[in-house]
């Protein structure tokens, strides 16, 4: 079933919308959730919460890109669950990924600037559009899809150390870019 047909089912408040979403994007949502959470039951719960969130969001929201919309919901729900879990239960691989992002944050001595919701995301988007395609995709696969370094190495046909080095350089450039654009972080 095409994405616009599934969205149409949501708009009609048809229960089939959930079934069709699960059939087409269940595995996709689970992969995103599993990259953030370590517990299988949490992943399953996160997937179901995603369908519920989509059901509540459409209408009035009308997603332009349905898989991105679902992935974003899954990602946010999984992140909430990750925060709720105790340190012992957390996905270590994801913790490593979050630690990497600390490199983009300002030092505690600097004064943080308040920002509007979505404003920072727009800046990051601008930065990524200006970044070389391969480095951009590696960055997004790492920090949006939460892919592991091993998966990235396989996907982009390069060594793990090369992936780490590209990510390091991109994070460094992002930090500089955001500093230049107004000291956001």
């Amino acid at each position, binding site marked *: 079933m095409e994405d616009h047909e599934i969205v149409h089912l949501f708009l009609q408040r048809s229960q089939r919308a959930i079934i069709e979403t699960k059939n087409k994007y269940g595995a996709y949502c689970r992969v995103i959730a599993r990259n953030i959470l370590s517990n299988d039951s949490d992943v399953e719960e996160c997937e179901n919460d995603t369908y519920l969130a989509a059901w509540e969001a459409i209408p009035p929201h009308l997603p332009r890109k349905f898989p*991105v919309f679902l992935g974003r919901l899954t990602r946010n729900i999984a992140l909430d669950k990750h925060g709720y879990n105790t340190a012992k239960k957390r996905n270590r691989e994801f913790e490593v990924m*979050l630690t990497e992002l600390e490199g*983009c944050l300002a030092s505690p001595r600097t004064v943080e600037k308040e920002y509007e919701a979505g404003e920072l995301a727009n800046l990051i988007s601008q930065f990524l559009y200006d970044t070389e395609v391969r480095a*951009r995709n590696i960055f997004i696969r790492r920090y*949006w899809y939460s892919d592991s370094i091993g998966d990235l190495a396989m996907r982009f046909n390069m060594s793990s150390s090369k992936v780490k080095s590209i990510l390091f350089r991109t994070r460094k450039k992002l930090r500089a870019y955001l500093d230049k654009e107004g000291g956001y972080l």
Partner: protein
Amino acid sequence: MKREELFREIGSIDDHLIEAAGNYEKAKGKRGISKKWMTALVACLVLYSSTSTVLLATEYYKHQSKELYIRYLTAEDMKLEPAEEYDAEKFLRALKSDNDEHVYIATNRLVECFNDPKLRIKALNELKPFVANDNQKIADAAAFAVDVLSKSYQSPYIYKLSDGSMIFTLFNHYSDYGSQNVLWRIKDNVLKVYLSFSEPSMYIKELIPSPDRKLVAVVTCSNKSEFIEIINVEKGRVSPELVESARVKFGAQNRLDTWIRSDHENYSFANNIEWKDNDTLEFEGSLAYQDTEMIKNVTVAYAFSKKDLKVTGLNQAKNP
């Protein structure tokens, strides 16, 4: 800003970017084998795999009957047939022996006739005269055996539990240290061994039921150590051994040198064992460290349902 907030913000980047990265093919640009060759290769592999599997399976079944396969060796397997069976007649004969030790052992072992109605009556009749035996140990053992076999269950050594079953030991206080290290249970009028202990739990020193009779603290010992386990007989759950657990925990809390010996003797003891409520057992422990060079007196409390062990020092000033 927190790293989680940055991660969430990255989640809101432009849809096109996410979609493009999502569609980025795995190992793009990597030279691979053409589809045609890949299909041929897979077909060959499938053919080879299925042929070899069939051949291996055939060989396996051919030799299956010849293969020696033992999944688990039980003590009974090791003895080979005919297995040793309980021989009531042997013990009935032993009652007529002049050897007091044999008579004492036979008296206790005849309780095992309980599940056979004919043997039970026979053993009961044979044992009754021994209740008045000059040897106090034999007389006590006979009184206990008669109590069980006659199903009157009046002996203080029989512990009646909340589920209607009863537990007891045989060879009660045969030694200064305690009774035989086997726990028997009568449930639904059937006698069975419930639990037996191995060295260093050589004797059952004491059975202490909880006030509601759902749990039983079993105190076992050797000539060097004491051990306590709590059993929920009905549900078949057993706590960790508490004296050694307390010793290890207290040792870790106070950075004491806590070795576990290969013979599992801990040279530690428990006193004033009592149930504080239906779930919590408390006792004073005398815990040995550094090959008994150091003795620490502690209070131990164990909550069975929470699996919570608390060990606190007692009169530490007295200890060097």
